[in-house]
């Protein structure tokens, strides 16, 4: 009994002292200042070892190894010590790693508020403005990509202000894949517009094919976001996602996009029972030859060299005919740790990651290049040729829009869950758009 009481007393006093102690997270509010004097002279930095953490495996892993080797050849005084971690693992522990003195100098973060915004606000990553000026990033990088790496220094707005991360000479897009063999046997040309696509889908359906391979079991939203980019005004959509309160979801084609997605469902353009098909199964089905088209992130189909000759990729122009707009971002936001002893060298490496050489190194390994219009894809790869052309077009049109879920931390859940409701006929498109606004506005309210 006495022992019980003693434990109770200890526990109670512990709880009391914890509650009374300073609030969680208050220890790391000191803002990282942007370095006042920066140097772009890497050779003069002496012997430097940088720790670098990323989540890239497979072809991406081969690519970054090549990039590091090339950089080290260029600057023999620099050693880059790379570690790779599983994406989910890195994502959930990066904030802890960056607070540690032995943590990485350079790491891949995620754009948006959840990862990059929180790290920047917490002063864990370097404000890169001085380097942007020294290396001329504002000229080198299209504005719609640059915005993805910027936050205001009061951390109330994303998409403007200071650079806190950099993109790279690679990109990840949402666009339309087509099964080239099926199109040929159906006698359809690869679509060049949304109207073409709808006509092709109707023809495919009439011929007994599944026009769009899709499964909604785990709330895949690529079809919605891919369609939205064709219908929305580029500037407004960017502004919406960067939390400009005056722009509403109805202004950025949300209602039209969800209506079209639902219309395709009602027309039987998705596989029978698509509500019970999960993402992995849908991808496997498509690569296995089911379905004619699929809205997908580039690189996510995992096509091998032989398959790449049989699948094509198009970035459809806007329905209004005003250029090409596509959902896309660099596959990772490169950050420099505020604890790094060699931010100059780290920034030089980030600059190198945006060079045309790294773009060519990417396309050589089957990855979609960006910021490097002259990168040459092998002619045998139909999909990579299409993807590279799409990226080059978006670079020149400055036509990127970020992933819609950057607008609020809970947005992906919101659109995923409500998309299922709309597809099941339990929610109208108008209500869907309302729910999107409600989610974002709730986030905006607590931001200010």
């Amino acid at each position, binding site marked *: 009994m006495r022992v019980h009481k003693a434990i109770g007393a200890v*526990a109670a006093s512990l*709880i009391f002292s914890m509650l009374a102690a300073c609030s*969680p*997270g208050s220890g790391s509010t000191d803002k990282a200042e942007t370095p006042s004097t920066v140097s772009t002279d890497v050779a003069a930095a002496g012997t430097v070892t940088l720790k670098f953490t990323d989540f890239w495996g497979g072809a991406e892993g081969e690519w970054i190894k090549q990039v590091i080797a090339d950089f080290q050849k260029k600057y023999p005084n620099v050693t880059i010590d790379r570690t790779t971690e599983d994406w989910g693992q890195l994502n959930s522990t990066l904030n802890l790693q960056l607070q540690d003195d032995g943590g990485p100098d350079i790491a891949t973060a995620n754009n948006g508020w*959840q990862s990059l915004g929180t790290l920047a606000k917490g002063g864990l990553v370097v404000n890169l403005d001085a380097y942007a000026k020294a290396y001329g990033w504002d000229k080198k990088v299209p504005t719609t990509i640059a915005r993805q790496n910027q936050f205001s220094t009061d951390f109330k707005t994303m998409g403007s202000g200071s650079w806190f991360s950099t993109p790279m000479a690679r990109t990840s897009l949402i666009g339309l894949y087509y099964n080239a063999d099926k199109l040929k046997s159906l006698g359809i040309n690869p679509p060049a517009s949304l109207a073409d696509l709808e006509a092709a889908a109707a023809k495919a359906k009439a011929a007994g094919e599944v026009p769009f391979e899709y499964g909604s079991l785990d709330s895949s939203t690529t079809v919605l976001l891919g369609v939205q980019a064709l219908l929305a005004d580029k500037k407004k959509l960017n502004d919406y996602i960067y939390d400009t309160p005056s722009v509403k979801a109805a202004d950025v084609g949300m209602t039209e996009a969800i209506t079209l997605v639902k219309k395709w469902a009602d027309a039987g353009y998705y596989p029978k*029972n698509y509500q019970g098909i999960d993402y992995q199964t849908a991808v496997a089905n498509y690569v296995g030859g089911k379905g004619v088209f699929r809205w997908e992130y580039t690189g996510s189909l995992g096509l091998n060299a032989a398959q790449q000759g049989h699948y094509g990729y198009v970035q459809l122009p806007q329905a209004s005919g005003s250029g090409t707009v596509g959902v896309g971002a660099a596959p990772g936001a490169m950050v420099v740790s505020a604890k790094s002893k060699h931010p100059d060298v780290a920034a030089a490496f980030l600059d190198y990651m945006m060079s045309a050489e790294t773009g060519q190194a990417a396309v050589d390994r089957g990855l979609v290049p960006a910021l490097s219009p002259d990168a040459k894809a092998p002619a045998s790869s139909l999909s990579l040729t299409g993807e590279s052309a799409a990226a080059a077009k978006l670079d020149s049109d400055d036509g990127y829009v970020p992933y819609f879920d950057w607008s609020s931390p809970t947005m992906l859940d919101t659109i995923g869950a409500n998309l299922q409701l709309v597809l099941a006929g339990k929610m109208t498109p108008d209500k869907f758009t309302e729910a999107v606004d409600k989610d974002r506005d709730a986030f905006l309210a607590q931001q200010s």
Partner: protein
Amino acid sequence: MSTSATKTVVRRRSLRRRTRWVGLGCAALPLGMYALVVLVPLAQSFQYSFFKWDGVTASTWVGFDNYVSFVTDPVLRSTFGHVLVLIGFFALLPIALGLLSAALLTRAKQPGMAVFRWIFFLPQVMTTVVIALVFKRIYAPDGPLNQALRAVGLDSFAKTWLGDFTWALPALGLIGTWVTFGFCMVLFISGTSAIAPELYEAARMDGAGPVREFFAVTLPGLRGQMAVALTLTITAALRTFDLVWITTHGGPGTSTLTPAVALYKAAFQNPQVGLAAAIGVVMAAMCLVIAVVITRISERD
């Protein structure tokens, strides 16, 4: 004589006191570890639940706001409704089935019963992740369940089980029934075999049939086992995470969202650490209350 007696008593008492201190000293290390890995995080979570915090930057004190959202947020509120449904499938159904099968199995002793028991207990030994993946396959649109239904002409009953707003939650619940049923059965069989045979004999002498015998002898004799089964299965239902995460992610819509999945989303996907802590505290409190209530009831004479 009397003085020596008191001396012995005193010595014995001080000896007892000394052994108590030795005991406590021995337990100090494990107790310290327990405090470090259980009590401290528990206290921390409790503290976090009063803040709005993204996990990195400065947090703000919000008082009971995180707890209030259990009432004001319809999605969060609905997760507890889903848990009630799951309790039916995880606890009540398996216990009823477990009692029935225990009664049947212990009455007629057949050879090979051990194998039978072992087969039903197997799900309890398997990792939930494996079970979830297997059932995801079974419930798939072209999976074995729908194929079986079509094979016997029940095409209209074939569904996209996990993608259906009405059926996803019961479909998940039945997985839980399958998992916990064997455990309940084995528990009840061992409990029944511990009941004194004289009680059954006496009941039979009084002319009780099998049904009467079950309600008069077996059921009261299994009270302790029932308490254990209820506590474990109800808390399992309350904590359901991996099953949902692997099969539906809480969908379609939010129709299979459980508190544990909501907690995970708040803590690791959207930086709302305070809300996640509040969900955790409420879940822990509910588990504690359920355990205490069940123990009290089962120990009452």
